[in-house]
Every structure is written in structure tokens, then in C-alpha cells.
């Protein structure tokens, strides 16, 4: 050490340093405790329509998980640490407001594979798209874009294995593949050997000077749906019935994100623009009215959707954002036996416009206000208001791009 310690404050610092050092030197069982974080979140929602009503043409898909009134969001306990020199473990446990807990993520990642290889196994958010891997507390809006809600049940969470390879290039080029159980929608969690769903994705990204950065991606997902049952599906008779679909479901997606910050200083101001598009083809057999007439015939449909959103931090701690969502339920090819039962075309494109503003007093807290004009249900426009808080306790997590 070359420093001369002359002031008494510096001595005090040294003293406290040595106290900490001796504490760190003490052998104890909890010295290997993993990094712990806990997310506290909650929303207040005011909706004009029943949130259980599906988007027009998407009665066989999940609905956005909106709730009315005061709601505790998912409290999320995050634990992570290196397992040993080869592996790192991450677990995220969701404590559900109604009681009970669910394992959101629980996976192991390799840390010492060479040549740009990253292997992940366990339960994880799939690497498809841009938003899919991001945890709810990092979302820029209270809810996911409609296309994520209806095509992925908000987020594709999978039990399986993921292998990624990062190319040894100056530009970011990553390709990856996953095989999994197909545990969540659109998979049907079928008990069988082998893989129930597969994903392929590629991402490229780079900087343009110090002020701009971007990432673009391409994704493919395939699963086999076995007796995927949907209740309350509207039909040509003007009633609703339970239908079930068996067949293949293939989804292709494009994603793009672009960020700008004057001097690259994200503390002060930045602009983020992102967009994603997904297109899904289901091809197989549809059984109409499973509890009644039970008629099965061919069914093929292509559903798609996209969103574009932008978030602008106009001064430190304050951001505002705008998002536009649009879905296309497609026109189905329905077998002759069901031609008088199943609705082939809805001739309606669900859409939604959302505005939000949030304030983050520190990196660990955020309060958000959001308005949405939701035209996702034909003839049932909905003006939605949300107030949300997100607070983080414990370890300072690193954020993904």
C-alpha cells in the first residue's frame, strides 16, 4: 500500500474494514448462502368488462391475466448461486396471492463450457422472442402484449433442456435450441417419452456508436397438442360448447429491439423501441362439443399477432411508454362434418392501445400508472386503468438487455 493514512476518519474506515475482514474470515455454515432477492408487487385494476372474456377469435387460447380491484401480485423469491466450479443454480418461487406457491423457474446453467456454449436445464422461460425471458417485475407495462397473452399464456415456461452457442464474432450472434415437455400452452403436457415441444432461436445484435444498440431475433416453436380442451367456445349455432384439438402447432416469430441514449448515459434519458410478431399454424383434428354431439373432423388455422411499443425515460427516474397491439384470428379450414358448427372466420382483428408512466425513486422501487383502450373483444370496448408497485428486497440483480 502506498497510501499514507493521516486522518482519523481513514483510521476508522481501516478499523471497520478489519472488523468486516475478520467476520468474513470466520468459518460458518451460512458463509455460502446464495444471493436472495424478493419481489413485492401489487396492482389496482379498474376494468369495464369481465377479464375472463377471451379476445374475439381466440376462445381456444389463454386470456390476459387481469384482475379487478386491489390485488397482491405474485411475490417472487429469487435464489441463485454457483453450485460448484461447473454449474450455477437459479430458482424463482412465486408465492401466489391466494395462498400456495409455484416454482416459476428452477434451473441449472453451466459456467465452464468452452467455445461459447451455454447449457441450461430444469424449468426456465424459453429463449424465444425478446420479452419471453424477462421476469414480470422487469416488464415495461403492467401486462404482456396481447400476442404474448394469447399465443404463450403471457410467457412460455418450459421444463427441458436449452443449448445456446455464442459465435466468436465481434457482432453478437447467438443460436439456440430447446427440447422440453410442452408443459404449458400451447403444449398439452402429455405424459410420454421423448420431447413434447421444441424451440429454435437465433439472435443478432450490436452497437451503432455509443448511443445506439439493437438486437433482432428469429424463433421457431413446435409442439404436438393432444386433446387440447377449451370450454365456452362460441359456435355457428349461437351457443358455446367445449371443443378439443389434436394436432401440430407450429409458431414462427420475429423480434426487434432498439435503444438510444444521448451519450449512452442511461441514467439520464433513453428511448427504447421494440416490436415482435408471431404467427402460429395449427393443423389437425377438432372435436366439436366434446360433452354432447362429439363430432371430429379436420381443422387448420393460422393465428398471428404483433405489437410495437416504445418507452422513453425523459428525465432520471421518470418514464413513459406507449404500446399498440393487434391480433389476427385467421380463417380456419374446417372439415365438412363440422362446417355448420365451428366458426371459421370472425372477420375481426382484436387490438389495444396502452399508455403508461412510471416513477422509480431508486433502482429497487417503481410505481406505475397505466391506461388501456382494449378493443380485443368485438363490440365490448374496455377502458382499463391500472396502478402498480414493484419493489425489490435483497440482492441487486443484473438486468438483461
Amino acid at each position, binding site marked *: *500500500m*502506498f*497510501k499514507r*493514512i493521516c*486522518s482519523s476518519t*481513514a483510521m476508522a*474506515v481501516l478499523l*471497520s*474494514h478489519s*472488523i*468486516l475482514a475478520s467476520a468474513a474470515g470466520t468459518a460458518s455454515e451460512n458463509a455460502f448462502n446464495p444471493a436472495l432477492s424478493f419481489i413485492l408487487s401489487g396492482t389496482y385494476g379498474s376494468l369495464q368488462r369481465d377479464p375472463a372474456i377471451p379476445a374475439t377469435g381466440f376462445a381456444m387460447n389463454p386470456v390476459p391475466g387481469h384482475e379487478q380491484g386491489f390485488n397482491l401480485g405474485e411475490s417472487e423469491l429469487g435464489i441463485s448461486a454457483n453450485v460448484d466450479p461447473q454449474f*450455477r443454480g437459479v430458482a424463482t418461487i412465486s408465492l401466489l396471492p391466494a395462498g400456495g406457491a409455484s416454482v416459476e423457474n428452477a434451473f441449472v*446453467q*453451466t*459456467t*465452464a*463450457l*468452452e*467455445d*461459447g*456454449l*451455454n447449457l441450461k436445464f430444469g424449468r426456465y422461460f424459453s429463449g424465444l422472442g425478446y420479452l419471453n425471458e424477462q421476469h414480470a417485475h422487469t416488464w415495461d407495462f403492467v401486462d404482456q402484449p396481447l400476442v404474448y397473452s394469447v399465443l404463450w399464456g403471457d410467457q412460455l415456461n418450459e421444463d427441458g433442456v436449452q443449448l*445456446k452457442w*455464442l*459465435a*466468436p*464474432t*465481434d*457482432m*453478437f*450472434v*447467438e443460436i439456440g435450441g430447446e427440447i422440453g415437455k410442452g408443459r404449458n400452452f400451447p403444449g398439452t403436457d402429455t405424459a410420454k417419452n421423448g420431447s413434447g415441444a421444441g424451440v429454435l432461436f437465433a*439472435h*443478432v*445484435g*450490436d*452497437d451503432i456508436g*455509443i448511443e445506439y*444498440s*439493437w*438486437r433482432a431475433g428469429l424463433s421457431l416453436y413446435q409442439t404436438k397438442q393432444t386433446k387440447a380442451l377449451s370450454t365456452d367456445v362460441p359456435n355457428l349455432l349461437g351457443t358455446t360448447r367445449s371443443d378439443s384439438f389434436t394436432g401440430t402447432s407450429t409458431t414462427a416469430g420475429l423480434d426487434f429491439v432498439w*435503444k438510444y441514449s444521448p*451519450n*449512452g*448515459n*442511461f*441514467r*439520464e434519458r433513453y428511448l427504447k423501441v421494440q416490436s415482435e410478431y408471431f404467427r402460429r399454424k395449427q393443423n389437425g383434428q377438432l372435436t366439436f362439443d366434446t360433452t354432447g354431439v362429439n363430432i371430429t373432423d379436420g381443422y387448420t388455422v393460422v393465428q398471428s399477432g404483433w405489437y410495437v411499443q416504445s418507452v422513453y425515460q425523459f428525465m*432520471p*427516474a421518470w418514464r413513459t411508454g406507449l404500446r399498440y397491439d393487434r391480433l389476427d384470428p385467421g380463417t380456419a379450414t374446417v372439415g365438412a362434418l363440422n362446417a355448420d358448427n365451428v366458426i371459421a372466420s370472425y372477420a375481426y382483428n382484436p387490438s389495444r392501445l396502452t399508455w403508461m408512466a412510471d416513477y422509480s*425513486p*431508486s*433502482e*429497487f422501487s417503481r410505481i406505475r400508472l397505466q391506461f388501456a383502450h382494449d378493443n380485443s373483444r368485438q363490440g365490448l370496448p374496455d377502458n382499463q386503468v391500472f396502478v402498480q408497485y414493484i419493489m425489490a428486497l435483497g440482492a*441487486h*440483480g*443484473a*438486468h*438483461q*438487455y
Partner: protein
Amino acid sequence: MTISTATPPSLPLSGEERLGSPPDKGELEGVLFPLLHTKLIEKYRSHDMKNYLFFALFLLAFPVHAALNVFACEPEWAALTQQLAGDKANIYTATAALQDPHQIQARPSLIAKARSAQLLVCTGAELEVGWMPVVLQESANSRIQPGSSGHFEAAKFVTMLEVPTRLDRASGDVHAAGNPHIQTDARNFLPIAEALGKRLIELDPANAAYYQQRLTTFTQQWRAAIAKWEKQAAPLRGIPVIVHHKGFPYMNDWLGLVEVAELEPKPGMEPSAAYLGKVLNDLQQHPARMVLRAAYQSERPSEWIAERAHVPAVMLPYTVGGTPQATDLFSLFDDTIARLLAGLK
């Protein structure tokens, strides 16, 4: 890509191009990958396979010297590595002087650059906690993971100041290891340079003599510069100052400036109008001679105070590149002291 471990005869090239010993597999990969994926591959892609094979054989037969790929988290460490490694290192600087080092995005480009790095030179002390873990994980590069010889944290080699005795976020964004802004005290560069020099020798023993010689030269020049700066800065001793962020304790410890107030209510929190009013009020009891801020910080809060308290607002480069004058480590401190002295007038 797999390279045969049977080393081809190393045909000596001239001067620095020559390797003292045959390269091992890792070194060769370091040579091949960056080359293959830059201009050369583009040049050769259009030609036929024969040309490509010839090119590959050429690379195998002539072990070109691989510059050490260095990923520097902040500009000051890029500058220090440049001083110590000269042309033996290929340095990428992850952040710029006008970016708040606490709030960096884990950009795709950083992940791509970290993948080929053989040495990571960062501040440590949790300064990079918001982005580095993602970059390290995604880079899938075991050479630079914490604990390996390619992971260098400068804060480990200096005496840390402001190590909190109470870790509580109610105190703002405090760092358990102490204040991470160690680069504002020129004296800190001496132990860091020594440790970094040793690390360069460990990672690239073939050039040990070169690194040792550059370290000796740098240390001599730096000691002389410190003596000069301390002499120049003598009028600053005991001068009370206000700081925007708690970013200068090391500089104050070195030059004897006395911090009487901060514009951030708590470290990392934005200065509010109400809090600035309180700071202004308190200045009547504890007058200050200037308001200091780093180049990346907004000028508004310090200008607001400066105008009302009738003291100059002084912007300091904080790191290499923070001002047009601060082009390397030496001019960084020349400029810092010149600006502080100008603020006294």
C-alpha cells in the same frame, strides 16, 4: 474449431511477430477466431475452396502473435492496460466517460466482446453489479469468470474508503465493499498497476520482460507525476466542497479537499428541489468553495446550487475521455487538478 495439438514448426517472423515458444491450443484459438471472423474471411469467402484451405494452412504454419484480448469495464482501466501492455493487448472499452458507470445496459455487443476476452479489467466492489453478471454468464467464457486469472478487479488492490458498517438500502445505493470510485486518487494506480502487470505476465508469460519493463517505466513516471500533482494541488488542501454524488472520497483523501454536502439525498437517488433547498440552506453554516460533479452527471443540480450560493460549479473528467483534455491517465489528472485550481479563483 479444433486445432491439432501437434505444433507446426514455427517459422520465425520478424521482430515482435515472433513467439518465444510454440503456442498452446488456447492461444491458437485466440489467434484464429478473431482473424477468421473479421476482414480476412470476407476476403476469402468469395474465392474457391482451395484458397480457403491455403489460408487455413497458412495460419497453422505461421503462428502469428496473438495480442491479448482485454475487456476493460471502464476507460481508466483501458488506459492503464494500454500503459502496461502497449501493442501486446487488443483492448475493448465497455463503457464511455459520459455514461453513469452504475447504470450500464448488458448490451449484445458487450456479450460478444466478452466471449473472446482473455482478461477482464474492472473496478469491482459491485460497481458493475447491474450488468456484469449477465455479460459473464452469457459470454460462456470460463477464462474471465470470477476467481479465474482472467478476472481482474482493481478495487481488490487498494484500501477501500466508506466501507459501510451498516448495510441497509435505506442508506441508498451503498456498496458492501466500500465506495467503488477508486480512480479519482492517482496513488491508487500504483498498486493496481503492479497487480495488473503481474496478471499480464501470468496470462502471457512469453512477453514477461516487455510487461515488466513497461510496468517499471510507468511506475517511475507515475510517481514523478504524483509528486508534481501534489505540489500543484497544495492550495486545494482544506478547501470545503459540495459534490453531486459521493464519487470523490478518494480524491478528497488524496488532495485534502473537504466534502461538506452532497446533492443526492442518498447515494444513487436524484437530487430533488426540496433537498437542494436544504443543501443551500445548510451552506450558510458550512460554506463551500465549489460544487463538483463528474462529466457524466447532469449539470442542472450543481448549476442551481452554484448560482444561488455564488460558488463555481466545477465539472471534472472523472475518467479518461470525460473532457477533451483527458486523453490518457496522465492528462486525466493534469486536467482534474487544473479544473479544481481554476475553481478556486
